[in-house]
């Protein structure tokens, strides 16, 4: 420290130290604050690899008429691994042409149902109506029904359970 200008050096020294303390406090606060906010805000979870789930024998689904299928999916929610019952609408045109729709309405995530009389999928929440091919006939739904990945092996139908963002005009996997 420069001792020649005593009165000034005392005050600048105080200020200097205060700045240093402030610097250390801010760097440490940043070093904790930024990661911890990231912890709470960013998505957690590892790489997900959804497995194929067996839905049923292809022959057991009626041709032409949509049918709701229930199947247990092994799901991973954070640290919980458990079997969860999911459903999907299976629309079989022929034994080679099968579409499986996610049971979740693309508007706000309600579960829609098949109306036998009208031959449409109808959502009870906001009256969206979908054709058997999934396209929107009326109502607020922003996009057609979401299809799930499908494969058949030895006459057995498998789907991969996926969820998509609701309310968006594009099909975005979540």
């Amino acid at each position, binding site marked *: 420290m420069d001792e020649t200008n005593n009165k000034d050096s005392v005050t600048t020294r105080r200020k200097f130290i205060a700045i240093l303390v402030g610097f250390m406090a801010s760097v*440490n606060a940043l070093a904790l604050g930024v990661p*911890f906010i990231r*912890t709470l805000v960013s998505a957690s979870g590892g790489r997900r690899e959804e497995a194929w789930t067996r839905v049923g024998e292809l022959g057991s689904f009626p041709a032409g008429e949509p049918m709701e299928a229930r199947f247990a999916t092994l799901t991973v929610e954070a640290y*919980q691994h458990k079997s969860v019952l999911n459903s999907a609408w299976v629309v079989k045109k022929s034994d080679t042409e099968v579409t499986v729709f996610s049971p979740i309405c693309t508007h706000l995530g309600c579960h829609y149902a098949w109306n036998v009389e009208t031959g449409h999928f109808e959502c009870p929440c906001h009256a969206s109506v979908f054709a058997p091919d999934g396209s929107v006939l009326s109502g607020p739904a922003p996009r057609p029904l979401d299809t799930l990945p499908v494969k058949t092996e030895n006459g057995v139908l498998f789907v991969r359970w996926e969820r998509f963002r609701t309310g968006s005009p594009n099909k975005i996997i979540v």
Partner: protein
Amino acid sequence: MLRSIGQWLDQRWPFSSLTRLTLEEEIPGGARFAYTLGSGTLIVFLLQAVTGIMQLFFYVPATDYAYDSISFLRTKVPFGWLIHGLHYWGANLMVVLVVLHICRVFLWGAYKRPRELTWLGGTALFLTVMAFSFTGGPLHWDQRGYWAGEVGTSIAGTAPVVGDLMKRILRGGEEMGPLTLSRFFVVHTAILPPALISLFLFHIIAMRRFGSVGPWTEAKREPKGPFWPDQVFKDAITGTAVFLLLVGLAAYLPPSYSGPADPLDTSYVPKPEWNFLFLYQALKYFQGALEPVGTMGVPAVLVLLLVLLPFIDRNPERNPFRRPVAVFCAFVLAAVITWLTIAGYRSKGFAQPGVKAKPQTSLVTRHGKDYIDIVLSVLTPETARAAEVPSALEKGAAPGAEDPDIKKMSGPPGIAAYSIGNAERGAALFRKHCSQCHGPEGVNKNPNPGSNDGKIPDLNPIDREIYSDNPDVFASHIDHFIQHGSVPEGANPVIRMPAFGDTNTLTQPQVSNIEAYILHLNGIDRAKIMNPGMRPRSFFGLLAAAYGLAALWIGGLWRRKRL
């Protein structure tokens, strides 16, 4: 504008006078680094509070999920490794700092009249920190924490008269279980923190009543130095050094995964945390009828010694060189505790009389345990080698062998697939249960006539279809085989893989450990951080670089170069 808001606030709440009250203190002889140990402890406590609360966002105090929720935090939450690492190392460092602080206060004679209450408050704080340490470990519900809790509560159980009651209160029942975890959790997160904060306020107010004690030689007590900014500056430097040290430890020495708690694993040598090792070691010298002396007497005497110190040692002299008896006694005590700690650390451990393995999973009843013994006897190396001839092995140990589905991987993975095992324990288990067929370290040359491959599958390197660089996927692939066994494809394979999980030959934590080992053999860390936020070492490097540059700048090196 800001000024007027400040004035408005200050008229209604005494912000500035409170700040002045906190910061305006004259320290005899000026600021010193020796005085930063107390504030260093406070800084670590604040860090523990913040990281503890962060952990509460993810941790589940239930035996099924405690271990996996912490593993999830550490590997799949951005900066989870930092949060857990800081909390783990902070807990250890806090004990170190508290002990150093006590030594400093002792040497300076700061416990003497009129500062007895400061010392007593400090003693209570020390015991609170030890209680934090004791209740924190078992919350992991991993092998280390589970057994430390088991031993600790058993020790409480040896106390005369009230021992059983104390043990039952601590455990919430006769045995370690879900209620024990809840109790430790509540004490650790709801009872001890407010206790520590109250005691800290008591301690700091008592301290400020008479101020810093200052140097013991009268000549050095002048001139006085201000607390702000001089002492605060030194506190900040110590605090920052401590923080950097903790981040470095979290990055370079992450706490090890000791594997999920396995109450059936009798081969695990339970030991308490290092800061309780001296008590644990002292216990060994009091056996039989003298046992309560070791379990209760020794800690009681130590606590009493701390509490009564200011009343026993009433000599007003503070210079350590002029109070040889007190300093000598303290030195002997410190030496004994250090020696006991080292001896305890190096010892092989001993069977605690109250400790016995208790079946935890519903699968393993008393019958189950007998069954395990039978299966284990079937699987001893001699009989297993004889399995080249079709033997009782597959009939006895693989009930699903007739099921054609078992040829493929069948059934879902067991719970073991999702828990991070301890590869070292896994190696020992592998040698015992797997290497007869799969070869040492999974390198195999054993034939398997009748199977299409003609030999037992290699585990090192493993089939590419089973391998994955995602440890969860890799482990769940292996898990199918260990849980349910398998029959190799082929006309009539002689050797079949027994269903180690389905038959309870191995417990689920043991399966996790073996999986961690097989992943390790194939170059995959079971505890790989999948979602780090930022790589631990990069984060530490960045922080260190920020301080390094700041130090260079403050040190004026660049300016000197210019001259």
